């Protein structure tokens, strides 16, 4: 799975996610990626989120909208909302996952509960900053 989140100069947030699913999958199985509010979500003034991981668990936990809701109704920061979701119910259900997210102020946050996630952002000079391991 791959994904991206962004805040543009006009203050608009967006999220995108794309996937090939699971190796050896059958029966037209679909994970969280294309489900708005599960693997992908964006709302101006709030946050944009793209998730990756065990799709069935991410679907059941509606990960992206949960992060958004914690910020909107619980006044949690982006960092706290991502951390609490990724390391909360999902982990309890045995789900490994990671999310990338950006808030309305342009703060980026990565959160993962597994040993690695291919990920990247731009540093303060606008240069690519990439990481793989926890």
């Amino acid at each position, binding site marked *: *799975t*791959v*994904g*991206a*989140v*962004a*805040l*543009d100069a*006009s203050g*608009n*947030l*967006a*999220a*995108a*996610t*794309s*996937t*090939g*699913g*699971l*190796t*050896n*999958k*059958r029966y*037209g199985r679909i*994970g969280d*990626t*294309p489900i*708005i509010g599960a693997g*992908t*979500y*964006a709302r101006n003034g709030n946050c*944009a989120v*793209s998730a*990756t*991981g*065990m*799709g069935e668990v991410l679907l059941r936990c509606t990960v992206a909208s949960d992060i958004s809701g914690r910020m909107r109704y619980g006044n949690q920061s982006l960092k706290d909302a991502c951390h609490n979701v990724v390391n909360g119910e999902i982990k309890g259900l045995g789900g*490994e*996952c990671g999310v*990338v*997210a*950006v808030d309305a102020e342009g703060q*980026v946050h*990565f959160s*993962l509960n*597994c*040993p*690695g*996630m*291919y*990920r*990247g*952002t*731009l540093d303060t000079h*606008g240069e*690519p900053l*990439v990481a*793989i*391991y926890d």
Partner: protein
Amino acid sequence: MAQFSLAIHGGAGTIEKHRMKADLEQAYRHALADALLAGKNILMAGGSSVDAVVAAVVSMEDNPLFNAGRGSVLTHDEMVEMDAAVMNGKDLNAGALCGVRHIKNPIVLARDIMTGSSHVMLSGDGAEKFAFNEAGHVYTEQDYFFTERRYDQLLDAKSTGRAALSESTFPDDKKHG
């Protein structure tokens, strides 16, 4: 410079540093940097966040290293079956698709569904009909998506009846989704 932000991911899971070959790790790092630059160039030019995230994802869909687009994993029937979604925070408009097999860049189709249809999500054959008949996408043969690496992974998964990358024997690819 105008203020903007961008972040990307290329999948998560058990990625073991001690088993990852140096050249493969470098390839991943370059590919991630390329995707960031694709999105950054749009944002720097005053483009929209939607265009930026689509450009970044297209860059990764075109790279066989990632499980999306060209590098998609294979189903039990040795086909690719891809899903994608995009959402615009400005107006809560969204576009999504699932189960497409002949679309080179599913994320572009997701944006076309968002902007060119009155629907949010289209599936399988219907999504492809919309793509070819109304959104100008070109039919892409399954051969485009086939890589030896993904075929070997499928054989490995079939040999033990698994249906996920989580227990793969491929060191860089014990990841999910």
